[in-house]
């Protein structure tokens, strides 16, 4: 009854244990479930391209009413924005699933792949929901899967500690969202996103609406890594397996961004004057805290996690500016940051697999023993430092110029200042990996196995393509921005 993509993903998720059972019979449980997950991702990527072309050149908006007609019932909607994000989710998810074939050596592989597929499914569900309650259910499914995956290495204390902290903070955020939904339901009598924006336009400004706005900002912002609600993020990213860190940082943070986009720019668009300054302040704070905390880190994954917070700040800044061009930049940055951060986390995972340490000091000079991974890591770090021919530069440039065009040059200036900080720690990473003399740990490292190199090289090629030839990808981001600002 859902869209074919979501149907297929749910079916694949539910049948993963079956694949594991068959695999256990033939003594190759891990290969069986990994193959099954790869088949699932390839199949759904094909479906997503079909649906995307249908949305872009055909209907523009696909709606599936699950029960009664809106404003009463619940519905699934897929517009250009949903398809844009769903494609990113599936690409990063498939890369993570390929990478984890070698990374996940202990624990139950069936459980891991079932929960990973479930998490990607839930994220696709989040961007496909046409009303806030469906969004909330998929949101919670996504959160539950991510808590499980962070705690996957349950024999390590740090996974358990990070997961508990993450569970408490993130659940408090989701419950805040639910509380805000109840206020919205009480004011407007519906939770359908497009009806909600219409009925709030008429209802004027009551206290309840403002409370709901603030609570949604906090709830979704917590997931998007907004400072001061970011403290779960570095711990969770550090303690999770690297492929999961790639998914968390690359795409799950973006689900929070999606929630903010929908609530602020669609539902609360009439109140733009009241949330704009607040969001801009949060965005600037997020950038500064993220970048400045990343500077002194020695743990490579913790450094990358703080850089995720900073990049989340850039995206929020684009939303705060709110013009068509700024939004294009933000969405384009969602794509670029997902590619680059997934690449860097996967490379970090390969380093950890090869050398057994996360400390940058011990990883010094590892490019000489792991040349392919090291080079890929350097390309990723250069891109994160916004060096022109690589992809991150283009989206950051769009956000900065859009800020100047929209008469907010101070915001653009603050962002440029932050790019200097981020370049500093990116260069420090490159120096550690490539320039410094090898340590005894990095001398013993071996090049990563093929299953790890394939996703890394794919992401490198993809980010170089986006960097050298950004026009088609920017157009996709433009249509997605169009879908928010002037819905069909």
């Amino acid at each position, binding site marked *: 009854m859902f869209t074919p993509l979501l149907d297929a993903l749910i079916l694949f998720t539910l049948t993963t244990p079956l694949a594991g059972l068959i695999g256990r019979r033939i003594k190759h449980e891990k290969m069986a479930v990994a193959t099954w997950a790869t088949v699932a991702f390839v199949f759904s990527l094909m479906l997503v391209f079909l649906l995307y072309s249908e949305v872009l050149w055909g209907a523009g908006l696909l709606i599936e009413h699950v029960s009664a007609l809106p404003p009463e019932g619940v519905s699934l909607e897929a517009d250009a924005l949903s398809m844009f994000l769903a494609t990113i989710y599936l690409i990063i998810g498939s890369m993570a699933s390929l990478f984890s074939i070698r990374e996940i050596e202990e624990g139950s592989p069936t459980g891991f792949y079932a929960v990973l597929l479930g998490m990607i499914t839930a994220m696709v569900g989040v961007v496909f929901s046409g009303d806030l*309650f469906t969004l909330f259910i998929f949101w919670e499914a996504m959160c539950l899967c991510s808590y*499980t995956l962070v705690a996957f290495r349950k024999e390590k204390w740090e996974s358990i*500690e990070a997961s508990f902290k993450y569970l*408490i903070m993130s659940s408090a955020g989701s419950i805040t969202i639910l509380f805000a*939904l109840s206020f919205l339901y009480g004011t407007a009598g519906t939770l359908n996103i497009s009806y909600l924006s219409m009925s709030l336009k008429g209802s004027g400004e009551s206290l309840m609406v403002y409370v709901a706005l603030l609570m949604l900002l906090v709830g979704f912002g917590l997931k998007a890594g907004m400072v001061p609600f970011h403290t779960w993020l570095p711990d969770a990213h550090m303690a999770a397996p690297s492929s999961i860190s790639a998914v968390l940082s690359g795409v799950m943070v973006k689900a929070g961004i999606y929630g903010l986009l929908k609530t602020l720019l669609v539902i609360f668009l009439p109140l733009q004057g009241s949330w704009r300054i607040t969001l801009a302040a949060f965005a600037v704070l997020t950038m500064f805290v993220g970048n400045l905390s990343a500077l002194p*880190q020695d743990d490579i994954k913790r450094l990358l996690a703080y850089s995720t917070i900073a990049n989340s700040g850039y995206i929020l800044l684009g939303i705060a500016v709110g013009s068509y061009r700024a939004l294009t930049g933000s969405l384009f940055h969602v794509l670029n940051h997902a590619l680059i951060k997934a690449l860097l986390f996967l490379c970090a995972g390969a380093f950890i697999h090869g050398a057994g340490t996360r400390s940058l000091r011990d990883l010094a000079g590892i490019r000489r023993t792991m040349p392919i991974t090291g080079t890929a890591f350097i390309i990723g770090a250069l891109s994160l430092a916004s060096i022109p021919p690589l992809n991150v530069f283009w989206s950051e440039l769009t956000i900065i110029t859009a800020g100047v065009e929209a008469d907010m040059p101070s915001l653009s200036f603050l962002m440029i200042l932050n790019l200097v900080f981020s370049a500093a720690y990116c260069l420090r990473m490159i120096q550690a990996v490539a320039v410094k003399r090898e340590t005894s740990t990095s001398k013993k490292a071996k090049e990563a196995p093929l299953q790890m190199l394939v996703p890394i090289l794919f992401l490198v090629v993809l980010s170089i393509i986006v960097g050298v030839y950004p026009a088609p990808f920017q157009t996709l981001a433009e249509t997605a921005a169009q879908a928010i600002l002037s819905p069909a």
Partner: protein
Amino acid sequence: MVPSNYYIACSIILFSLGLYCLTVKRNMIRLLMGLEIMINAANLNFIALSSFVVEGAVHPLAHVFTILSIGIGGCIIALGLVITIYAYRHYGTLDVRELRRLKH
């Protein structure tokens, strides 16, 4: 009949109690109880506010939402308890102040 404003006031008080519990309490199981109180506050608020939509009656859609969200709340708490058990095995205590080894 009790006016529905009372229910809303009650749910806001419950929500603040849950939040207070999350910020002040040290025991991991109490934190999960705080979460549960917050979930119940939100559910109560849903039911109370849905009587605004249709005068004098609770809208059936709100019931559906609430039942689903009770289920979700159960999932969160169950997972939280599983993690608590593992934390107890690693740390030998339920005090969250002990879970600070990741701080740098």
